[in-house]
């Protein structure tokens, strides 16, 4: 296990370095002159030069990258061009809300997707299976922003059961905090739930054809025991991979969902940075998101190793 963790870490570090290079280059090279873009065409030469010096943009590229990276490693992501606030404090304020949103959506999609996939596989070709499969196709085909709007239209405007948005910390007011996030969770989690359901269904069906299931039958175990103890543990292995690969989808989706439900989270920070061309914030946001995504995948790999005892020794 220990060696496996080290091996995985060794694969992630280069990706993290690559991520930082991309975040840096995206802003500093592709955008041409970020200061001009930022200040607009009306700015005088003097103003531009002033901001350039202020941001340290006159140094050679690799020097700028290294000093930026050094700052980032020390927790200093710079200051927002728009508001002048420290990017790290902006991230620290908004990120927990988004993590809470994404976590809830992930729990929801696993909690619904896996049991639905199991039921579908066990009662293959039944009306439950057809129903769940159709719903899952719908779930991966509906854009999350459209689903969010329909949910608001239905449950907030029409039925008035739930608030249409806003954020209340679950620590301050647990009940209200929950109520406000129910619709966002559903809007964000539906697609992932559908993906998980389809993966669980197909991998369970595949596992049921494996030789050790025949062994278990020949041993006289009950169907329930064969399914719950022998089959599901094996079928979860590929499903977990799919969940890990789609965490990025949750983080990206949060941008849209937070916009619709007016949640002042990391997604809103991202969107505002993009819309305002606030490249200092955008750099930080890109880096943190990629770091999060990569780390979650690292954790998923550990779960994977827990589920599949073979992995440690390969």
């Amino acid at each position: 296990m220990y060696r496996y963790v080290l091996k995985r870490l060794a694969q992630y570090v280069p990706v993290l370095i690559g991520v930082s290079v991309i975040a840096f280059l995206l802003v500093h090279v592709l955008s041409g002159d970020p200061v001009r873009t930022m200040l607009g065409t009306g700015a005088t030469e003097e103003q531009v030069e002033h901001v350039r010096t202020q941001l340290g943009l006159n140094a050679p590229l690799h020097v700028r990258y290294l000093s930026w990276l050094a700052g980032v490693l020390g927790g200093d992501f710079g200051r927002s061009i728009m508001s002048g606030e420290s990017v790290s404090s902006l991230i620290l304020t908004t990120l927990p809300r988004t993590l809470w949103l994404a976590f809830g959506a992930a729990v929801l999609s696993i909690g619904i997707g896996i049991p639905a996939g199991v039921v579908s596989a066990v009662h293959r070709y039944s009306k439950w299976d057809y129903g769940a499969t159709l719903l899952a196709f719908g779930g991966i085909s509906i854009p999350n922003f459209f689903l969010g709007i329909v949910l608001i239209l239905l449950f907030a405007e029409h039925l008035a059961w739930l608030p249409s948005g806003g954020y209340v910390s679950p620590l301050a007011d647990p009940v209200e905090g929950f109520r406000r996030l129910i619709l966002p969770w559903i809007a964000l989690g539906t697609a992932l739930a559908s993906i998980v359901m389809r993966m669980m269904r197909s991998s369970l069906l595949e596992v049921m054809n494996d030789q050790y299931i025949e062994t278990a039958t020949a041993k006289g175990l009950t169907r329930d025991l064969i399914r719950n103890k022998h089959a599901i543990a094996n079928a979860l292995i590929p499903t977990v991979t799919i969940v890990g690969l789609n965490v990025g989808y949750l983080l990206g989706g949060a941008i849209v969902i937070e916009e619709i439900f007016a949640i002042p989270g990391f997604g809103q920070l991202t969107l505002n940075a993009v819309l305002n061309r606030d490249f200092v914030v955008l750099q930080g946001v890109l880096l943190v998101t990629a770091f999060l995504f990569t780390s979650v995948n690292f954790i998923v790999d550990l779960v994977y190793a827990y589920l599949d005892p073979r992995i440690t020794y390969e």
Partner: protein
Amino acid sequence: MTADPSITSNGESEAKHSPSEPLLSVDGLSVQFQSLDGPIEAVSDIDIRINRGETLGLVGESGSGKSVTARSILRLLDSSASLDGRIHFDDTDLLALDEAELRPIRGNRISMIFQDAGAALNPVLTVGDQVSETIRMHQDIPGEGISGVERNALTSLLRPTDWPKRFEESWARTIELFDRVGIPEPDRRAFEYPHEYSGGMRQRAMIAMALSCRPELLIADEPTTALDVTIEAGILDLIEELQAEFGTAVLFITHDMGVINEVADRVVVMYAGRIVETGPTRELFEHPKHPYTEALLDSVPTLDGTESLDPLSGNVPDPQNRPSGCPFRDRCPEANAACDGRFPPAYGVHPEDEPATVSERGSTTVPEPRRDGSDHATRCVLYGDVDVLQHEPGLSGSSTAEPEGDK
């Protein structure tokens, strides 16, 4: 291990039955699979008897229907298979049982081991768990049944590795079995996963699992085919030892005549879904009657090299278009016109019987047909009725005892 009376309870209670009555009798078994291209008959008209404690070897090339026959006994074939005939196990009609009634028999009174033990063991459960759950499933040890923790998918994922140890009695028996089948350091290895075992050790673990409830019948489906020759010998010895110790009957399936010669008391030879010859091992090896059996024996290299090595040419016919008549006739060196029309019934034979010679039609030399309780029988026209050889195929039907054309 034998000190515990509850383990042996099955064996003892069954011993009251009369010894002449077979433990397992399969009569006229046919298995059909539904496929996209219509039904396929995998095996037809199979008769098998296994007595208590004996080893019956079931031999044939791949595709001959050995595995289908074996799986029919435990009803392991999927729902696309339809079974016809009778399978009686110690007065119980296995084909009449439903799932729930079969369960106390599977793994308890009849158990099975497979060719690829690596695939037959669950990769995510410890080997000890897989053995001990069988014991807990079938043996009524107070407080040690299958627990709710493993019945529930969620909790079953969160059990610690050494979890089955809490069932002291069944765990002690598991360790004892590991020791008995020759797995070193059983206390440690019981907590390991199948991928940490070598091929031979996995098969030993399978054997421990299969014999954990002292079954009356063990079905061994090519248990040594995937193993090295040196390891094979150890596994064969182990099966024989435990069989003697537990009084278990064994249905041993293999394509290897050498293995059959070593383990089997009696032999059933299958070809293309049919039984072509059956007899006591020794007699069958020394006096094979069916040309297919002869061919199989010829293809076994012997140590002194005196026997000619004469591999069979051609392949087992495709089950979807088997020829009418004897399924072997296309590859048979002795085939004649009579083989086309029908597949003959089983004729009892004696060691000294000679096949009919078909030198001149009409004046064929044919031995007296024998049906006097010999336990060596073959389904070949050369040992059958005179008329069969004297008439053109298709005209002979009226004079045969069991008219039976292949569909």
